[in-house]
């Protein structure tokens, strides 16, 4: 009977080997698939057991914090947003039930205190519990508050039902986002509930969860002329004194183009054309520069790709000429009309408020585009700074000379009595630079506009660059509706509002 016994043992060994084989499949080879399985709540629960770091503004106001729930030895932490809707954008939310958005998502690794394999082993030996790091934002609570109130007020008095808007304020020398507002907003505390989230995402809710500052693209209207002027000057083909006809209408792209209100201008230089926002002048400039040069300079300013902001990529959109099927195009569009922030089915210029704030900031910073960022610094639970904002030049779209000439021209827009923003003042009369925009939405007969204003102040040694826009505004113009939002933000930033 000994031979069958040996064979039986061999069979047992095969069975045991199969067990080891199956174990290694689940524990090692297939473990990542299992960890991603929706029914697997382990990663989620483990993440909730870590106290998530605080999010504070640059001036120390707590925007997001976590409180323990469940008590006992193994609590889980739940997020609170003490400032309510004020920072719904751009901070977003982080809940087990509904996931993560905004800065909560883009900074998740530091907030959750994720460690690499090596420090993890060291911490385990020292039995240090995993704890999240604290994030200090570049946002200033005062500027954020002023920007929110100013935008809400303008939307309430001018916007049609359900309209929204956005404001972005940047520090031109560092790229720091000092304020970012998107209206309508939402209170992140309410989004813990799946039902509320679904309601806010539903049709007719006014899309409060969309961050209009980074994700919505709008026709920029005449604010685009800053980009066109920059391309014209920096390419060396034009100077501020280059003279063209301001006659209206003129044939642009085979179709007559009118100035605003059909206004006639004689032969004028570029400074005058920007000050009075002459469509026909800049459309000719666009046509003379050509599609190649215009696309080149748009790309230099960051068009055609998501902003280089530390923010989730699914909550950002690139700016540039979009065709009617929603794709960015680099050729075969009406370059004369794109140069003044318009276009047609083959290519309509559409930009995010953040992109236009970056344009203003680039001019303000002597031609250098600083990479925008939300994070001032990161501190570990013991208060040690582990990461600090180090300003990074994202690109140099234009020369300092071009920037200086543009600053001069944009200062005329606000300071010259003929300027489209002549009525606006900041900080008790400090000279500042700006550009208005008023894009017509749909049938011009309806009078629905998209008013814009981009600006930086002071004109010399700028401290703040701002862009503001309001959606679907009845009979609104950039200077009258978007302008006051921007000037209030500038006042707040310069410490006089």
């Amino acid at each position, binding site marked *: 009977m000994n031979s*069958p016994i040996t064979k*039986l043992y061999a069979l047992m060994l095969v069975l045991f080997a199969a067990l080891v084989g199956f174990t290694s499949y689940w524990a090692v080879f297939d473990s990542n698939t299992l960890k991603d*399985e929706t029914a697997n709540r382990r990663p989620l629960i483990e993440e909730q057991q870590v106290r998530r770091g605080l999010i504070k503004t640059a001036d120390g106001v707590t925007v997001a914090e976590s409180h323990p729930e469940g008590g006992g030895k193994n609590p889980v932490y739940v997020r609170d947003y003490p400032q309510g809707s004020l920072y719904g954008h751009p901070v977003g939310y982080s809940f087990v039930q509904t996931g993560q958005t905004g800065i909560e998502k883009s900074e998740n690794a530091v907030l959750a205190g994720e460690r690499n394999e090596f420090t993890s082993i060291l911490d385990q030996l020292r039995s240090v519990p995993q704890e999240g790091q604290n994030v200090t934002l570049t946002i200033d609570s005062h500027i954020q508050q002023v920007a929110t109130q100013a935008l809400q007020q303008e939307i309430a008095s001018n916007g049609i039902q359900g309209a929204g808007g956005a404001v972005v304020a940047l520090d031109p020398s560092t790229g720091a986002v000092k304020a970012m507002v998107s209206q309508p907003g939402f209170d992140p505390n309410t989004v813990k509930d799946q039902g509320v989230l679904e309601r806010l995402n539903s049709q007719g809710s006014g899309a409060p969860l969309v961050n209009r500052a980074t994700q919505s693209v709008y026709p920029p209207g005449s604010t685009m002329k800053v980009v066109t002027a920059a391309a014209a000057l920096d390419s060396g083909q034009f100077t501020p004194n280059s003279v063209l006809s301001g006659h209206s209408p003129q044939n642009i792209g085979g179709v007559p183009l009118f100035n605003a209100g059909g206004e006639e201008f004689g032969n004028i230089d570029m400074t005058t054309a920007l000050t009075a926002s002459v469509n026909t002048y800049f459309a000719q400039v666009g046509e003379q520069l050509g599609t190649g040069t215009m696309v080149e300079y748009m790309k230099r300013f960051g068009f055609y790709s998501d902003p280089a902001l530390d923010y989730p990529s699914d909550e950002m959109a690139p700016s540039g000429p979009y065709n009617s099927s929603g794709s960015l195009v680099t050729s075969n569009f009406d370059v004369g009309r794109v140069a003044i922030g318009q276009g047609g089915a083959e290519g309509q210029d559409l930009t995010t408020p953040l992109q236009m704030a970056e344009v203003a900031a680039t001019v303000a910073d002597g031609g250098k585009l600083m990479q925008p960022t939300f994070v001032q610094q990161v501190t570990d639970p013991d208060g040690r700074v582990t990461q600090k904002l180090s300003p990074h030049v994202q690109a140099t779209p234009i020369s300092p000379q071009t920037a200086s000439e543009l600053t001069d021209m944009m200062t005329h827009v606000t300071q010259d009595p003929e300027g489209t923003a002549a009525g606006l003042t900041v900080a008790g009369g400090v000279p500042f630079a700006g550009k208005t925009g008023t894009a017509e939405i749909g049938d011009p007969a309806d009078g629905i506009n998209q008013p814009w204003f981009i600006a930086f102040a002071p004109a010399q040694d700028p401290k703040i660059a701002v862009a503001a826009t309001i959606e679907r505004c009845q009979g609104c113009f950039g200077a009258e509706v978007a302008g006051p939002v921007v000037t209030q933000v500038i006042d707040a930033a310069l410490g006089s509002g």
Partner: protein
Amino acid sequence: MSARNRELLALIPVAILVTAGFTAVFIVESSQIGDISLIYGGYFLAVCVGVHLFIRVRLPYADPYLFPLCALLAAIGLVMLFRINDDLALKQASIFVGGAVLLALTILFVRDYHALQRYRYLIATGGILLLMAPRLPGIGAQVNGAYLGINLGPFSFQPAEIAKICIVIFLASYLAEKRELLTVAARRVAGLTIPPIKHFGPLLVVWGATMIMLIYIRDLGSSLMFFGAFLALLYVATARLSYVITGLALFLVGATLIASQITHVRDRVDIWQNTFDKNPCHLTKQELHAGEDCGVGQIQQSLFAQADGGLFGQGLGESLLKLPGPFAPNCQQPFPDCGSILPAPHTDEIYALIVAELGLFGGAALIVVYALIAARGFKTAVMARDGFSKLLATGLTAVFALQAVVIIGGVVKFIPLTGVTLPFVSFGGSSVIANMILLALLLMISNDARRPLPPPREAEPMLEELPA
């Protein structure tokens, strides 16, 4: 070195391991080193040395590695149970002491295990009656659709654990006697070997009993284990693969038929095949007890726990087990019966917990221990000097090893998950007690097998041949 000294020496690493394991869990739980782990290690060593001394006196020639290997399993089990809940470890430790006493009593009272042959029909009847006990009103209890245990006052007892030994004793005894007839008297009809029905009848009864288990107490795991041991013995006794194949085919036909009739069994199979489907269950809400999900959560959580383990595991006490705060359900029963992310971490799923905390290497090491025990058991069978001893050792070893294969196989989704315990590791009185009896029998067989033959004496036979 003598066999007994080797046994004593082998117990030392086991004691060190249990001390180290307790220390590790203790540090994680309370961030300090106490003498409690040393006390546990000391007690464990004391009990083991006690058993060793007993074996030294009563079974001096017994296999020296069987007991240390089983003690190693018990040590791993105690550490894991201590990690789950110190109450469980304490209970299991006293069960282990009780089991050790039972091991000694078995060796004392059975004396010559050959005597068991005489009571084989009694033993078989007793075993089958034990199996039916969970369906008896008043003492039977249903768990997850299967009738596995009986409640005797405060104790619950799984009779299948004892029954497996009874059935193996019967089969070994019966086959030892009839194996010649089963092979020699077989006729070949149309290429098939047909064994003589008369001698095969009792074996069919056993096969029938396992099928009844499936139908009546719905214990898929135990019937798999029983039937596996039955086939193993049949094969060793007759050396005919055709019997095994026929038996296997019969079992599969029967099991398929039953699976199509009994929802509980069908669910187990469907969950095994479609673990991540939305709802592989056929049982309706009314048929399930409150809070049960027909077992789909159990196999999923088992795999998720193993996925967390990786190569080296998360460390003793470091994996997620107790559901924290708001995730914890409203519990009537104490942890770990309720509030554990891994269902039944102390019984069915203890292997998943071992992989989660000690990794693939920990799990593989445990399986190697079972393989080593099987090696010692089969070696005993090879060395045994008579047919009954060989078959009994084979049967006991096979049923022990198969039990590990059935439960670990279920946990790693190799076969459908069924509720049997992991021998010596899982929490549970009946399992430890039954396996201690099994170990006692194996030790006795090996003592007989390894006893040096007495030198041939010449005088006595001469005397007998003298004319009166």
